[in-house]
């Protein structure tokens, strides 16, 4: 960290330490993560894209990872920062295991840890450029929370990052229920992911859905969604348009 002090006669004095450490902008980014609570636990979905500006450069990036036995972390934003966060969590879970006392970190604890990390980095003007979704089940208790790059942290029944906030959450607000079955939950998430695929330029058609229950955490194999393009207005767009010779009868 550097501090630049302006003395009266205009001389700048710089701290002997390394150059100004502030993350200015992200390079390789992941797009939305969407997650919901359902009857048996948590379901989370994200695609496998790593964008480099407007180029869809990497198409096999796993943006959801299991943390310990009880939690799953999904991330959008800068992938290198997500990889660093996974290293911090590795260290955290390792130290937790070293106590060898039969206890293990639950989602609440991991979420709290991440909140502290993200907020402290924000205070130093050197954020980890991610929005994180943390979900899990421990001792029958379902937990779903989110932390942003500026340290805003909260829990809810359904969360989404990035574009998902604008496109997925309205769907979830309308259709989410406390007692969704696994099948209903997956269908609901897929509905959100399909809309994101249609309307988010940085989305790719290769996604994973993760399931968290008391039994444990599993992440599905990558798969693709079918899309629909056969609306009459799509196949024949100029029919009925102002000034066209084609009429919509």
């Amino acid at each position: 960290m550097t501090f630049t002090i302006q003395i009266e006669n205009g001389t700048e004095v710089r701290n002997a330490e390394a150059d100004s450490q502030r993350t200015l902008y992200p390079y390789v980014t992941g797009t939305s993560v969407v997650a919901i609570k359902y009857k048996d636990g948590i379901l989370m979905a994200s695609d496998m894209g790593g964008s480099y500006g407007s180029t869809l450069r990497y198409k096999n990036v796993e943006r959801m990872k299991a943390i310990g036995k009880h939690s799953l972390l999904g991330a959008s934003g800068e992938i290198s920062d997500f990889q660093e966060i996974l290293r911090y969590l590795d260290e955290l879970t390792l130290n937790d295991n070293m106590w060898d006392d039969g206890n293990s970190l639950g989602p609440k604890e991991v979420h709290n840890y991440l909140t502290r990390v993200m907020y402290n980095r924000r205070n130093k003007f050197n954020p980890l450029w991610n929005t994180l979704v943390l979900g899990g089940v421990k001792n029958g208790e379902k937990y779903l929370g989110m932390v942003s790059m500026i340290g805003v942290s909260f829990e809810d029944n359904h969360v989404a990052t990035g574009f998902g906030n604008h496109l997925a959450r309205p769907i979830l607000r309308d259709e989410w229920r406390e007692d969704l079955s696994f099948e209903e939950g997956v269908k609901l998430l897929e509905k959100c992911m399909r809309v994101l695929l249609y309307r988010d330029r940085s989305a790719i058609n290769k996604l994973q859905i993760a399931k968290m229950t008391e039994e444990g955490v599993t992440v599905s194999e990558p798969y693709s969604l079918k899309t629909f393009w056969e609306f009459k207005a799509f196949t024949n767009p100029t029919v009925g348009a102002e000034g066209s010779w084609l009429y919509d009868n």
Partner: protein
Amino acid sequence: MDLNLDAPHSMGTTIIGVTYNGGVVLGADSRTSTGMYVANRASDKITQLTDNVYVCRSGSAADSQVVSDYVRYFLHQHTIQQGQPATVKVSANLIRMLAYNNKNMLQTGLIVGGWDKYEGGKIYGIPLGGTVVEQPFAIGGSGSSYLYGFFDQAWKEDMTKEEAEQLVVKAVSLAIARDGASGGVVRTVIINSEGVTRNFYPGDKLQLWHEELEPQNSLLDILNAAGPEPMAM
């Protein structure tokens, strides 16, 4: 400062790393530019880190060189401590450490490729920011923009060594044709269990692409050759 989040800094060079059934092939062009001037038309962008791990450098020449030098130094010590050759994964991670922790200052994209006895041939892409991505093939540098479509179509799993090298040479050659920041010769490095082979493909040994003409010694040779045929009626 203009925070144009959608336009990453473009980098001079074309670099490629490809795995095949037995090892990896690394390839690169040889142009180093200072603005519009070609400072070195025959540079070697494929740098050795250990006997079995090499790295393709793109972006700032200085940054990529200093990162390679540090990692070579660390790997040398690591090899002595381990008593056996370093793995490709460890090499990639050391590059990642420097790239990530100095992301504010460095402007270099790297492709690490090599062979070790545990995992065989592996390629790791390390773009700006310090993300590490293990891939069956990787492309980088400004010239790579012209190769995404090409590789989507031409890449296949389990190529032979010859197929892989031909693919790399063709790709670098295509990128050179369209990217002003790439040019010169195509250099390749093949790494497998048997060792390392370096190859050199000068411009005149490469296939001609669209609107490129066969090189001549002089106009005079063309004029002195057979005159134009009279038109048939």
